[in-house]
């Protein structure tokens, strides 16, 4: 018998049992759909982090305190750090020739209130260089000046989202806001920047002079009792001189911190690229976990196919007997069942891919409390999902098909 005829028999038999065929496919549809959706979301999250960092520029270095013991992302978390950096450290770095701007930044969460409105935002204690380092432009008013920093003025510049939530359409410049029970005057509003890092909007910020942050809001001291700086952002002239500048920063800070030759750095100099690498590691793990969850549903789907194939062989024992009685060979029966399994898994996989695609498209267009994930459906995920579903279909079809093919015709006919 020719292959085309086996194909025709298989297709006819699938159409003759529409309910059973669609139930079998459902498992694969859900499994493949879940794989596509979750992998796309994971990839999307990775892509959005990468693009956010690229926006910030690759010619940026960040100096943070570090015990030199805890590495990776954990080492970057403020919770693990003893403060070692000061404003004088930041000032000393200005001497390096290729450095364009230096911005010491302290960061925390704070509740900002104005009138009846309140909002939790990220507060940055910064210097005038903040604007240049992070490519922020002003929408209204002015930015923090050197004088503001020197005299620890109670002034703030609001991120666009904060300004809108607190003051709506009104002009916030000159108005008062309250943080930690103290009153600050709004002197400017930043242009919206869009984007987010790990789901936190870049526009949900409040900027205040770093000296004000240190003395009036969140006091933190180094071992020697000076006001601490959480991190120093260093913008260099171009990406090529990054390594050179990194070395100079290390030399200057080691001398200032009086570290002997055999002592480790009590700070770390991290480039945006390194930071991106670490974050990508995290989102990579995130994607793998999502993929694993999706794979479990694919596995469950495949067990479903196997189960239904087995039931269908049993249920169709008589049909197999009839076919064998009129001259079907083992190979013919085997081929029929295998083709049926392959069609089910191919069609199911196809529908699953389309479904997963649609769902990840919808996810991209749904705002989840300020966070949007632009999911990315890429060819390799689709190919992976198709091949997995066909493999599962064939693998779970082979055993029932062989069992069906081996039946003795008269035993098969007597059944049921």
């Amino acid at each position, binding site marked *: *018998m*020719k292959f085309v*005829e086996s194909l025709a*028999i298989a297709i*006819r*038999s699938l159409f*003759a*049992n529409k309910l059973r065929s669609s139930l079998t496919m459902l498992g694969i549809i859900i499994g493949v759909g879940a794989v596509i959706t979750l992998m796309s979301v994971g990839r999307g999250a990775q892509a959005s982090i990468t693009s956010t960092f690229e926006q910030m520029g690759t010619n940026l270095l960040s100096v943070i305190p570090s015990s030199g013991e805890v590495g990776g992302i954990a080492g970057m978390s403020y919770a693990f750090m003893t403060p070692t950096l000061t404003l004088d450290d930041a000032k000393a770095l200005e001497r390096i020739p290729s450095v364009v701007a230096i911005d010491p930044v302290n960061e925390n969460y704070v509740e900002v209130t104005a009138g009846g409105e309140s909002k939790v935002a990220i507060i940055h204690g910064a210097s005038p260089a903040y604007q240049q380092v992070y490519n922020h432009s002003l929408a209204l008013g002015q930015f923090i000046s050197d004088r503001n920093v020197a005299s620890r003025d109670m002034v703030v510049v609001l991120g666009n989202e904060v300004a809108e939530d607190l003051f709506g359409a009104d002009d916030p410049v000159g108005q008062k806001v309250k943080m930690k029970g103290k009153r600050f005057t709004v002197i400017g509003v930043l242009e919206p920047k869009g984007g987010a890092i790990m789901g936190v909007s870049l526009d949900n910020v409040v900027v205040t002079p770093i000296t004000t942050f240190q003395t009036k809001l969140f006091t933190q001291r180094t071992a020697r009792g000076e006001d601490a700086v959480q991190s120093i952002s260093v913008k260099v002239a171009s990406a090529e001189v990054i390594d050179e500048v990194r070395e100079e920063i290390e030399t200057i800070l080691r001398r200032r911190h009086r570290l002997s030759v055999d002592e480790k750095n009590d700070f770390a100099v991290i480039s945006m690229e390194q930071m991106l690498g670490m974050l990508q590691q995290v989102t990579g793990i995130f994607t793998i976990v999502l993929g694993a969850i999706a794979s479990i549903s694919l596995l469950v789907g495949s067990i479903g196919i196997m189960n239904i194939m087995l039931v269908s062989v049993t249920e169709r024992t*008589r*049909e197999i*007997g*009839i*076919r*064998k*009685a*009129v*001259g*079907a*060979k*083992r*190979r*013919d029966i085997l081929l029929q069942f295998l083709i049926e399994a392959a069609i089910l898994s191919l069609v199911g996989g196809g529908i699953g891919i389309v479904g997963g695609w649609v769902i990840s498209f919808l996810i991209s267009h749904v705002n989840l409390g300020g966070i949007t994930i632009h999911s990315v459906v890429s060819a390799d995920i689709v190919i992976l999902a198709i091949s997995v579903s066909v493999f599962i279909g064939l693998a779970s079809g082979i055993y029932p098909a062989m069992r069906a093919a081996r039946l*003795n*015709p*008269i035993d098969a*006919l007597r059944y049921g």
Partner: protein
Amino acid sequence: MIEFESVTKVYRMGNVEVYALRGVTLSIKQGEMISIIGASGSGKSTLLHVIGCLDRLTSGSYFFEGAEVSRLNDNQLAEMRNKKFGFVFQDYNLLSRATALANVELPLIYGGSRNKRQPAMEALERVGLGPRAKHKPTELSGGEQQRVAIARALVNNPALILADEPTGNLDSAATAEIISIFRQLNQDGITVVIVTHEADIAAQTQRIIHLRDGEIISQ
């Protein structure tokens, strides 16, 4: 055409061995119309299945047109069933979701015929079912379903038609119809073997093989 030489068939039911055939020696010539009779459990269906290569014998020898059948492998047996034999069963054994025509085409598909529709239609017309070719078995009466089964049995021009209680589920009018079809086929040169327990059907055949407890007591 068919030579049986002390053929036995033993089934194992757990630890018990059941003898369905005990040393059956028999020959069938081309063009005969034979009935096999006997009480239920006498082994008449088993004999028919062994003749038709639906089942293998346990010991003895079986020659079909001079060839030793017990030496054939599964694929060769399938070919024998396809080309040499046509089966008609008591409960028709049609594919219930396929039309009469598709059912009759089935042996042609497995036989690898290029042209299927025309011989299948001819076979249906031969049993008087041409106009009902597009009907499914559930839309046909018992007698009509059995005629579809006969059409399927003869579509590959078999040497032998084997019928296992073909009228067991039919009323007397349909029974008469089916038997007259078998007689017509026999007159056209096809050897027919019918298993039955109805004496008046057996009476219409040329030769009666009487089985009891797996042995032939008269033929």
